[in-house]
């Protein structure tokens, strides 16, 4: 059971870098875990801290105002690279519930949706506005798939309908997949006949 997602209102954190790969989101040396929790402290580890483990003051998550923000606005092609689901786990554990970009990599998007981290792809103009207004208070409404910004500015977005249904209702898609087992069994029986 995942927590239902309907409306999210929060300040944004803006990370205006294109092609942020999952190695940046969570470096591989933290992947020897067999758990899925507790990864938030390693989120963007090498951008947050220097080699001597001191916070890098210029990194956005170390600046005042980042604390408590639940929406990350990032550059194009967010989440590219490795399939590690540790990336959305780390973002969620840190406190984010949504990522906004003009493009989000396929595997990351799928992983995010399975964990209740909403991947939001919006048009370039709205994205530019968000980049220009770091820390803006915005709302993301999954019921009508709309991002609401200041002064009546709105942007629509699309979410795969089944994933959206699952998120809105807190449904685990595995339950539905398990309900298809009779069809899966029939497919396997047909395949066995063919072989």
């Amino acid at each position, binding site marked *: 059971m995942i927590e239902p997602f309907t409306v999210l209102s929060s300040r944004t954190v803006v990370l*205006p*870098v*294109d*092609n942020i*790969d999952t*190695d*940046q989101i969570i*470096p*591989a*040396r933290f*992947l*020897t*875990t*067999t*758990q*899925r929790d507790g990864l938030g402290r390693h989120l963007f580890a*090498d951008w947050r801290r220097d*080699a001597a483990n001191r916070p890098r003051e210029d990194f956005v998550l170390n600046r005042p105002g980042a604390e408590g923000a639940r929406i990350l606005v990032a*550059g*194009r*092609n967010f989440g*590219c*690279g*490795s*399939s*590690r*689901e540790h990336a*959305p786990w780390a973002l969620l554990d840190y406190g984010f519930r949504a990522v906004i970009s003009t*493009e989000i*990599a*396929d*595997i990351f998007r*799928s*992983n995010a949706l*399975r*964990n209740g981290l909403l991947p939001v792809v919006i048009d370039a103009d709205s994205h530019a506005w968000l980049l220009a207004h770091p820390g803006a208070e915005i709302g993301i409404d999954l019921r009508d798939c709309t991002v609401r910004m200041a002064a009546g500015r709105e942007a629509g977005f699309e979410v*795969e*309908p*089944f994933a959206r*249904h699952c998120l809105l209702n807190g449904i685990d*898609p*595995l339950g*539905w*997949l*398990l309900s*298809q*087992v009779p*069809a*899966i069994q029939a*497919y*396997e029986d047909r*395949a066995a006949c063919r072989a």
Partner: protein
Amino acid sequence: MTAPRTLFRKVWDRHVVVPETAATPAVLYIDLHLVHEVTSPQAFAALRERGLKVRRPDRTLATVDHSVPTAEASWASGLGEMDHAARYQVRTLGENCGRSGVRLFGVNSARRGIVHVIGPEQGATQPGMTIVCGDSHTTTHGAFGALAFGIGTTEVGHVLATQCLLQRLPRTLLVELEGRLGPGVTAKDVILGVIGRIGVDGGTGHVIEFRGEAVSAMSMEERMTLCNMAIEAGARAGMVAPDETTFEYLAGRPMAPQGEAWERAVVEWRELNSDPGAEYDRSVTIDVGALEPQVTWGTDPGMVMPVSGRIPAPAGAGHRKALDYMGLSAGAAIAGQPVQVVFIGSCTNSRLSDLRAAAAVLRGRRVAPGVRAMIVPGSQQVRAAAEAEGLDRVFRDAGAEWHQSGCSLCIAMNGDRAAAGQYVVSTSNRNFEGRQGQGARTLLASPLTAAASAITGKVADPRPLLEEGRRIA
């Protein structure tokens, strides 16, 4: 008369258990599920929490590769210095496989290796299959005309429990590679060139089909290198239609069909190509006849250039950030850039032909002083085959390290890592910041270019060394 279909569509259609609707994705059957230690423990745990069993252990194959050390010294000491967490992760996979009846090529197996090397090597990877793994480089298996793609851990759990995935039909992208590769130019250079052309998100949402004269001429190992990095263009999968080269590679492999079953399979596999007139959502044609060896200068695989070229002027903040991280200057030649580490290995370039290519450059030469050259075979079988033909001697005589198999310096979570500031010429697939160690700087290249760089101690075009080798021979 059915409409002409692409190779991808033929494989997809055969695996649809429940068709997609506006409200629900397709239920897609998975023929082969490859499993490794890093992305599976949470999935097995999720099954246990729900009281679910692995539905088809016979369609599941596991190995350990990411977090296992490769240094000879580590193995000589019985992996005594292996990281505690990594050791627990490897043991957890063993327990999970033991409980569920999943076949595991474990730490002590002679069939162990990088998951994307052993699937084809064992003949588990076959044309027309759907193949998934909790690893983005699963695209490698598309070289056989399989639909193969990486998934996250939650979906690993879905496949363990149901042997199926919920999937929307992806789009298709045809990449037509015309021309014949020049001497010293490899499949690695081709895929780097393709990514440079279409971009690291050029394939997002698409399954790529590679075809054309250059692809037909490639060996299976070259096609694997090509498809391996389809993900670096953002693609879901890369595919090549199976042909005689494919069948020849697979014949007689332990997990491939044998006897009459083989004959029947080949008849079926011959149907696996795109029909004339089949439509793709997009297509791009690239002439690779004049392609030079490629090397990356930045922090994603699309930041790539010919080895004889000069580092391009930065196009935007991303390029400036990359140059800053890499400590390189626009306008400078990349050839001649001093390097400290050379890594020949990874699921991209660690097969026997890659090692032979490296040996062709290293034979009778010495690695430059101050350069650490690591040769890491993709599997224990590759290692044994290389040793049988004396390649290990060539490497050792040249002053290079000869390792046990594994992911090694491609992912640097197993004891192998480069130091901050070091330049690494690497045959792996990702030059992301910190990928090979915090602060380490990766330049992706072919095994030939990597070996030439090891000899000269600088980024080097391998072609003069190959030419010199031929004159001496």
